[in-house]
């Protein structure tokens, strides 16, 4: 295990989280088209950042920084990491951030078509998931994790976690589509709002039952209980933020411009949604790490063994 690599991976993951917040601020301020060109802003590298250009160009600057950090992270991984699949994930992270940048450019050049904007927002979450995963895979707790006995007579945690993860990801896609389907001065489409509410219910059920199963079956395994507890706590906050975001968003079409608290609450909702997603990813990865595949004899899979020098 390389402590420096793990710390840097955590730093990149934190920077990615900040980037998601910066992107959410662009959407909530209706600043996505503050400049019609890309990659330059009004033909300049550093335009005067007034009005909505502050949010749009600021987002681009943060994104560029994260892109650079991802390049460094990939090089760091290729130099220090021996596990082939982690090396591949490092390369994938770089490709994902490049694709994300290009999608950002596309959505500006095509004037924010719903499909491209939603894809941009969704890929942001997947990239965040990738950087967090790299931080998990390079951590000491991952390397030193001990296998647990096989679960018997119950629905395997692997399945529960995977179901929760897929449900959250679908919910993120619906949320991204909802956010980009109407600007602050338009009402949100009813169908999408209802779908998002239904998604929230599905996430509550799947994630809640998953966390409950973890706490009940492995109460002393902090490796699993910590992310499970964190995910549930974040989910509670997220549900409250979702209700608050809807209430403020309901009134925003009467406002002359995007205003607080609508901006801050909707951005917090996006950010918290990302945290729910990654905490569930951590839980899922760790479940796969320490619990054997259902029906198989427990053994330390070579995939998860860290042949570190």
């Amino acid at each position: 295990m390389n402590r420096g690599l793990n710390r840097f991976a955590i730093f990149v993951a934190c920077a990615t989280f900040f980037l998601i917040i910066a992107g959410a601020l662009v959407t909530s301020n209706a600043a996505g088209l503050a400049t019609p060109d890309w990659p330059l802003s009004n033909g300049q590298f550093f335009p005067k950042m007034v009005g909505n250009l502050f949010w749009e160009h600021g987002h681009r600057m943060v994104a560029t920084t994260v892109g650079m950090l991802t390049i460094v992270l990939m090089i760091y991984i290729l130099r220090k990491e021996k596990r082939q699949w982690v090396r591949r994930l490092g390369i994938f992270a770089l490709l994902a951030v490049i694709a994300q940048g290009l999608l950002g450019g596309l959505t500006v050049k095509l004037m924010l078509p719903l499909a491209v904007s939603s894809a941009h927002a969704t890929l942001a979450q997947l990239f965040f998931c990738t950087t967090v995963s790299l931080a998990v895979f390079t951590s000491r707790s991952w390397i030193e994790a001990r296998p647990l006995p096989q679960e018997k007579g119950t629905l395997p945690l692997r399945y529960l976690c995977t179901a929760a993860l897929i449900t959250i990801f679908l919910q993120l896609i619906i949320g991204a589509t909802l956010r980009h389907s109407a600007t602050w001065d338009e009402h949100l489409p009813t169908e999408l709002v209802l779908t998002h509410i239904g998604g929230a219910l599905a996430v509550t059920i799947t994630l809640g039952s998953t966390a409950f199963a973890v706490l009940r079956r492995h109460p002393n395994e902090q490796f699993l209980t910590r992310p499970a507890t964190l995910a549930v706590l974040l989910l509670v906050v997220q549900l409250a933020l979702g209700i608050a975001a809807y209430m403020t968003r309901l009134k925003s079409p009467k406002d002359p411009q995007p205003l607080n608290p609508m901006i801050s609450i909707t951005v917090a909702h996006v950010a918290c949604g990302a945290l729910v997603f990654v905490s569930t990813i951590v839980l899922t990865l760790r479940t796969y790490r320490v619990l054997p595949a259902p029906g198989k004899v427990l053994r330390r899979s070579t995939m998860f063994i860290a042949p570190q020098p």
Partner: protein
Amino acid sequence: MNKQTKVWLVLSIALSLLALGSACGGGTSTNNGGPANNSNAGPSLLYSGPTGSISGVVSYNGTPPAPKKIDTTADPVCGQKNPNLMTEDTVVKDGKLANTFIYIKEGTTADGKKFADYTWATPTDEVQLDQNGCHYVPHVLGVQVNQKLKITNSDATQHNIHPTPKLNQEWNQTQANGAPPIEKAFTRAEILIPVKCNQHPWMKSYIGVLKHPFFKVSGADGAYTITGVPAGTYTVVAWREGGATGEEKTMQVTVPANGSAKADFSFGGAATSSTTPSLKMMPAIEFPMLGKH
């Protein structure tokens, strides 16, 4: 390099080429009246008979919503030039409503021909839309199809003009302070095209594009007069900004030769002289809205 890495590289390159192709294509393409979409094209039937006028006053019944103060702190230039910038969606003075777009929608001329069968020459003079004090002046305006729209920036800050039409081509262009005017035209009739400034999200304007010249915007006193109207019977529409789709009233009027027809409209809570509000004005934002449920 293994197979999976190669696949990702190919996908990445393909996406890059797509983005670059889009960038080179130019998202801010101009729309200066290409003949292909000129609605005046084809056999023309020019009107040469007697004309009259339509005049009236647009009223607002009840208490209008109070204008809201706009927060300009995001751009200090706006606050310095226009410290008391207010919303302009409902401008009422002494019960009279400004910024209402009144136009002939359809009808029959006195000689029995359909109004829509006639064609009208495109004016050579241009219509100006100025950005002054971080708001659009005028707030509502009308142009004919292919008539030049001259957009100017009188502010010491940059603006971003972004019409969002449904029938015409959308464009989005930055205009720096001191930059020369931007000239555009719309090739299809469209009621009404919202115009935004993506740098200053409170800035809004509406442009009505018609094939004919028979439209007006009510002044501060709510009054309007449309002159040179062929004698005949018409459906006259008054549109005002409000809600997600705008609000319209219609009225049938008969314009006598060398005479004047009166068409007063009223909006607001206690309006009685109007017909059914239209939801067809801006079809692209006809989402089922939560506010309507």
